[in-house]
């Protein structure tokens, strides 16, 4: 397997355009309009935008399914139509267009053969992938009988059968239950840890924010914003302090301290348990009680062949995070090992001594858990989608 060199260009697009014409050759739609794009090796790159913004068309051009009407596009340094390039690519389309008469095991075997993978490896990978996506129990049922979520799972498995260097995921969590969504995001983190490049297209903003290193936001076929997640989401106007539960007296004392430095507390709230966490707990409990399910099971760990070597995995994640340049998030997250507030003011005092925002030491998997009281700044997207702050989207947009 050829690993893409970290930072080396995987996809390069310059002035890329794609127009669709009718029978009379009149332009029916300009789906992609002169976009410049660079996806670098080892990064998770997000394509973000509302429906019809040009995300899928861009992906189709990268895959060679559509030819650009203008501009230049190269994938792994070659034209997208080059069959040799496809050997390193895994693709999950927005819907799983799979043969309904094949079983999951036959489906994976088929796609594995298209990559020229030997029989023994194919069989092993197929079993591991089905275990990973939770379909091992229905490996011999025709895909045509599957629910949408199960189809997505088998679609994801087929995208990974060749252990791709460059994985293209078009709406990967669409149709998946929270467990599947969580697994997909875990998988993306695992793959990034192995130096894989991932192009993630989604209009689920949380998904993109949780896993992407860089992203572009498309609207009307044009790039409206681009940069790292932190660059785009940085909020230098406020500070969040997270700590154990504190009583009213302590809050008042904090408020006094803040008032002395000219600040006020805008909001005091007790976070609720995230719904995802609650859901995962219930499913896990049911699984332990061996409750039967006829569909997909919760799935297992990332397939063995897709995992980083045990000794390196965590290190790679650490290295990746440490290697990240650029601005860091303005939020301050208090770690568990920070002394709890005992009412003596030591925490507060230490904070006051270090009024500069503390950088995040390392990106941890926990950090990708969405929280119920989501602190995602949607203002940029809202603006693009015509939403008024706190209001509904403007459908006419």
């Amino acid at each position, binding site marked *: 397997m050829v690993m893409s060199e970290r930072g080396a260009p995987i996809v390069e697009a310059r002035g890329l355009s794609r127009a669709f014409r009718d029978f009379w050759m009149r332009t029916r739609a300009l789906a992609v309009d002169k976009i410049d794009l660079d996806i670098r090796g080892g990064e998770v790159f997000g394509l973000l935008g509302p429906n019809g913004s040009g995300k899928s068309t861009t992906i189709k051009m990268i895959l060679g399914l559509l030819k650009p009407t203008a501009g230049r596009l190269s994938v792994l340094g070659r034209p997208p139509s080059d069959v*040799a390039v496809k050997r390193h690519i895994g693709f999950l389309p927005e819907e799983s267009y799979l043969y309904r008469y094949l079983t999951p095991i036959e489906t994976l075997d088929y796609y594995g053969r*298209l990559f020229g993978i030997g029989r023994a490896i194919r069989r092993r990978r197929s079993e591991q992938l089905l275990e990973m996506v939770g379909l091992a129990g229905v490996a011999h049922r025709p895909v045509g009988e599957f629910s949408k979520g199960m189809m997505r799972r088998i679609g994801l498995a087929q995208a990974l059968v060749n252990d791709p260097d460059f994985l293209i995921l078009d709406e990967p969590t669409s149709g998946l239950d929270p467990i599947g969504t969580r697994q997909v995001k875990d998988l993306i983190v695992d793959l990034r840890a192995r130096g894989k490049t991932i192009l993630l297209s989604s209009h689920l903003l949380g998904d993109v924010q949780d896993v992407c290193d860089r992203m572009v936001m498309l609207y009307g076929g044009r790039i409206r914003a681009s940069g790292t997640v932190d660059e785009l989401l940085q909020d230098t106007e406020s500070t969040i302090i997270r700590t154990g539960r504190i009583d009213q007296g302590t809050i008042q004392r904090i408020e006094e301290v803040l008032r002395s430095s000219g600040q006020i507390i805008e909001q005091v709230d007790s976070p609720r348990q995230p719904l995802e966490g609650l859901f995962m707990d219930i499913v896990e409990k049911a699984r332990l009680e061996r409750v039967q399910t006829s569909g997909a099971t919760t799935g297992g760990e990332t397939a063995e062949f897709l995992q980083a070597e045990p000794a390196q995995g965590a290190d790679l994640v650490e290295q990746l995070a440490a290697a990240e340049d650029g601005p860091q998030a303005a939020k301050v997250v208090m770690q568990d090992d920070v002394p709890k507030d005992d009412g003596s003011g030591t925490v507060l005092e230490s904070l006051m001594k270090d009024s500069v925002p503390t950088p995040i030491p390392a990106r941890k998997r926990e950090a990708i858990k969405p929280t119920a009281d989501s602190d995602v700044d949607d203002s940029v997207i809202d603006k693009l989608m015509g939403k008024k702050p706190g209001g509904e989207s403007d459908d006419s947009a």
Partner: protein
Amino acid sequence: MKLSELRSRLDTLQRQRWCRIVATVLLLALAGGFFGRIVSIRVNWDTDSAVLATALTGDEATTYGILLRNEGRIVIDGEVFEAPTDVMQTYLEEDGTTGEPQRVIFILLQDSIPDWAPKWLLLDTSLSWKLMVITSVIGIAIIWTGLLVSVVTLIFLGAVFSGIFALFDGGQWIGVPVAICTLLSAYLLAVRILQLLLSGSMGWSAVAHTLLWEASRTRLSLAFVVTLLITMPLLPLTLTLDAPIDQVVQAYIARSLGLAFLLSAFMMLMLGCSSVCFDIRDRHIWHLVSKPLGRFNYLFGKWLGVILLGGVMLAVAGSWSFGYVQYLRVSYLPRTTAEYLAQQDLLEDVLVARTSKRPIYLDMSGKEVRARIDELVLEDPAYQEYVDNDLPLATFRVLRKRVFDDFDIDQRRIDTLFDQTGKPWKKLHFEGLQEARELGLPMRLSFKIYGGSSDEHDRRLIGIATGEDLGEGVLGPFIPTMPQHVDIAPSAIAEDGTLDVTLVNLTQHTPPAGNDWRGPAELEPLAMTMGDRAPFAIFWLADELELGYPQGTFGSNFFWGLVVLWLKLAVLAAFACAVATTLSFPVACLVVFAAYAAASIAPWIGMSLMLYGSGGPSPESAGEYIQWFLQATVRTVASSVVYLLRGFGELQPIGQLIEGKLITWAWIREGLFMAVVWGGGAILFGWFVLLRRQLAIYSGEE
């Protein structure tokens, strides 16, 4: 326990190595036991038969005969042979002699054949050995490809239904369920073997392999497969078994192979179209082209899968057809002279592979053509204006065609006694018969004669002689438009492998009764004398008079016939796959079925165009112009169809097999040429379309 669970457990069991070994040993023991016993019965029969023949025709024949007549029992070398005395008294005289020793032997031995032993199998021990090997090989393949449970289930179901038919005295229907299940099992086995052969990691083999799954699991193609496998065992029920055996066998070959080809062609056209069209329509192609699978490999894999599946259908149906023909052959016991003659015709005319030679027809040189045209201009008042002027090109072409046609038909026509154009006979020259001469192979002159009103109820006389001498010819009847034949001794062939055959027009004479050829006869005096009937000129078509001699076995000829049919199917499959790259499924189906129909009838269209000519005076009124325009359009389309597709329609190996004619290498070459050039060309076209075509569509808002 649920049935599915039971099946799952059995399936797991059959995949275990020890289970396969045990099943193989059992199979070999059963096959060896059954067929070995059959051979043993036949060997014992032959031995006892020889002993009895010696006894009943030797020195002690009368002693044994009297013993049999009086006691119904004799002992030879310690072995006892018995029969009822009243039966023996029918065949044995009082002095112990018999005029029918074979009949006596048969009666004495008939009880030695157990009821379970098929008589037709006992007649041919080599067939028993062959069947034992075939059964063992097929059985082992079934066991080791993991199909044992499926096949046993199918055969069990077939046996149950056959048993039900037997209970209600189902007659000919009894064997049908078992036969259907056997054919289904054979199909399953063939597909499984193909899948094993296609299990490599090449992209095209993966595509072909998956197409076999598609064909086995989707209703569209499965409908044709199941229809074929159900219909084949039912076909014998449509035969008129009272008819002469040669005609029964010919009818069966025509129907079984015709049906197999037709249903295979339909299945392949539908599957080729649906597989590619639905891949594009349902966006499976998005997955495929995002993998390292070239578009040519994709299309080639589809083509390969379709033609392999068609090959399986043809092979299963063809094997069944061949097996049933062999069954008809070995199980037929003639009782009358007519039946015996029919059996002879079957063995000599149908179940053979005769090579054919046509007479050498001459060509005209350019000078001769020009000279004849000049003569025509002088003779025909219509061309008087061109006697001293140059002929316009169009007129020259018309005259040239007339000259060629006249010259051509003149070589295949024999005038009557009263025509002043020549003698009422024609010498035909054959070449390249060295092999027949050296091997002393009997030759057969087959012909179809036309003449007069070509009334197939008429009966006229014709004479045939070899060489120049009409003094030692043979006479025989012919029925206009009906195929006839006469045997010619290989000794008539000259050392250089040439043979002259003279046909004599004797239509003025009423032939004697019966169908026999009589001779030697003085043909020239007969030809030059008046008869009791009004004579007419006789003629034949170029491909309907030929000299044939056996040059191969029916088995190998049947195999090559199937190969040619399969090559034709490959062309259809390529066309279907190629058209499907650019059209939607219904339109693609319409196009390929129309093309298939046009290709099949192209020879008849060609014949129609030739017979009916351009015809009609030049248009003068508007209505006539419209009519002329429509006719010209239809003629142009028809001519194009004939030009492009005639080769497909004319390649009819089933007709060759029915007539016992050899499928020559020329046939196979032509089939191969069509499959590679036409089929390959169609695939290249489809590849070009796939390369140019944008496989994805715009999914956003306009």
